[in-house]
């Protein structure tokens, strides 16, 4: 059952002559939850954005379910065709730090737009799905409200529901609690935990070390565009192999210690 869902091979991403992702290899099995940590500018967001096909890459390949989904544009046989890109986007859901809900649509309309337009669902079918997802994230009473009337935590849960409505195989989370007031972080993390328990494959960039410890199967430490170390959370947190990982975690825990 545990075949690889995502295989990233030798991914190179550059902006100009600045290399952001430097020969990244990554293997994600179905149902795994991976937490990605690392200093600012290490390429965590860029990695997620490449997986979501929001960014072209120079070299390497991304396979999803064994199928080639994206390929470096400087590779001999060029870019993936539009159909496989569309395919890739349907399998991957992404949630952003800034929620990015559509402000002119109600919460339910935010969720049903893509299922209707992309998956070809009927209005009634999409509404049923949307309401079920809103119940799942605890927002069933907010279906007809516009996003600006929601708290940050509620907006983020609505954004998670919107991504889930496309029934992705993988969910990508890029610092989804970083823009929230501290008291609202918990409700979003709880939703993500639930999702993990239900077997969703997840790639999570976060500074929430508690979440990483409890939920992650593996923690990935990135630095300067490379994956420096990947191991189970207890290994990463208790005995990291790499000096850079240790230094980063010491700084992080030090900062958290001072905050409390």
């Amino acid at each position, binding site marked *: 059952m545990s075949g690889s869902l995502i295989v990233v091979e030798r991914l190179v991403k550059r902006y100009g002559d600045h290399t952001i992702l430097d020969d990244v290899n990554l293997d994600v099995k179905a149902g795994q939850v991976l937490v990605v940590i690392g200093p600012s500018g290490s390429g965590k967001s860029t990695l997620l954005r490449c997986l*979501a*096909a*929001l960014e072209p890459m120079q070299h390497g390949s991304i396979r999803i379910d064994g199928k080639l989904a994206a390929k470096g544009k400087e590779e001999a046989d060029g870019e993936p065709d539009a159909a496989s890109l*569309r395919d890739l*986007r*349907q399998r*991957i*859901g*992404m949630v*952003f730090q*800034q929620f*990015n*809900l*559509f*402000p*002119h649509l109600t919460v339910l309309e935010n969720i049903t*737009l*893509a299922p209707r*337009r*992309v998956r070809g669902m009927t209005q009634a079918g999409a509404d049923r799905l949307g309401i079920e997802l809103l119940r799942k994230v605890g927002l069933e009473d907010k279906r007809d409200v*516009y996003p*600006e*009337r929601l708290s940050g935590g509620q907006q983020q849960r609505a954004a998670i529901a*919107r*991504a889930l409505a*496309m029934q992705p195989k993988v969910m990508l989370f890029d610092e989804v609690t970083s823009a929230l007031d501290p008291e609202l972080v918990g409700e979003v993390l709880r939703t993500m935990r639930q999702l993990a328990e239900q077997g969703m494959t997840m790639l999570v960039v976060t500074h929430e070390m508690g979440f990483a410890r409890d939920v992650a199967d593996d923690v990935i430490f990135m630095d300067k565009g490379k994956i420096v170390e990947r191991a189970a959370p207890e290994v990463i947190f208790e005995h990291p192999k790499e000096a850079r990982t240790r230094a980063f975690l010491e700084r992080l825990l030090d900062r958290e210690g001072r905050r409390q």
Partner: protein
Amino acid sequence: MNDFQFTRILVYLPDLLRGVGVTFQIGLVSASIGLVLGLVLALMKFSRHPLAYWPAYVYVEFFRTTPPLIQIVWLYYGLPLITGQDLGAFGAAAVALGLNVSAFYSEIYRAGLVGVHRTQWQASRVLGLSLSDTLRFVIVPQAVRNVLPPMGTTTIYLIKDTALASAIGTPELLRIGQLISVETFRPVETLTMVAILYFAVTYPVALFVDWLERRFKIART
């Protein structure tokens, strides 16, 4: 004050109202041309393809920077010489003003589209929405709100610019006013009357845009 003789002008009111009709029609045709062509130009200027971008760029700069009066004259006198196509006084004025205002509308569309945060595009892309669905359901409904106030102002300018059609003899409001002035030797009264009638056309447009703005705001809360 007693020298003003508005009553002498009133007998010409039916003529003036016919002029209002023509002014309104020129405005309507040119605004329609401008709204459609302006959107096409704006989208072309968003394109990174040089064959889309550069023609739109040259077009917009050309029509923005030359006087609309001369554009009308070109189309009325120049086009038949070059192509043998005679649009007539009404057609030449309406088309020339439409081409002119499309340059201004396109810049307004562009500003409106740019004003929608780029993260809205990203959110649409990760949901798998096509480009046309993204524009139709996500970007344009938000851009409309940014676009309405400058669209209203530009349209009011356009309606006043229809007066330029008088230069090629289109029987619109100002042209009729000029003829009446000559006949009655009462230019001040006549043109004041004409100004009031322009107001009667432009002010409802202003009110209509205000109403649209309110409608699109209410949809948010």
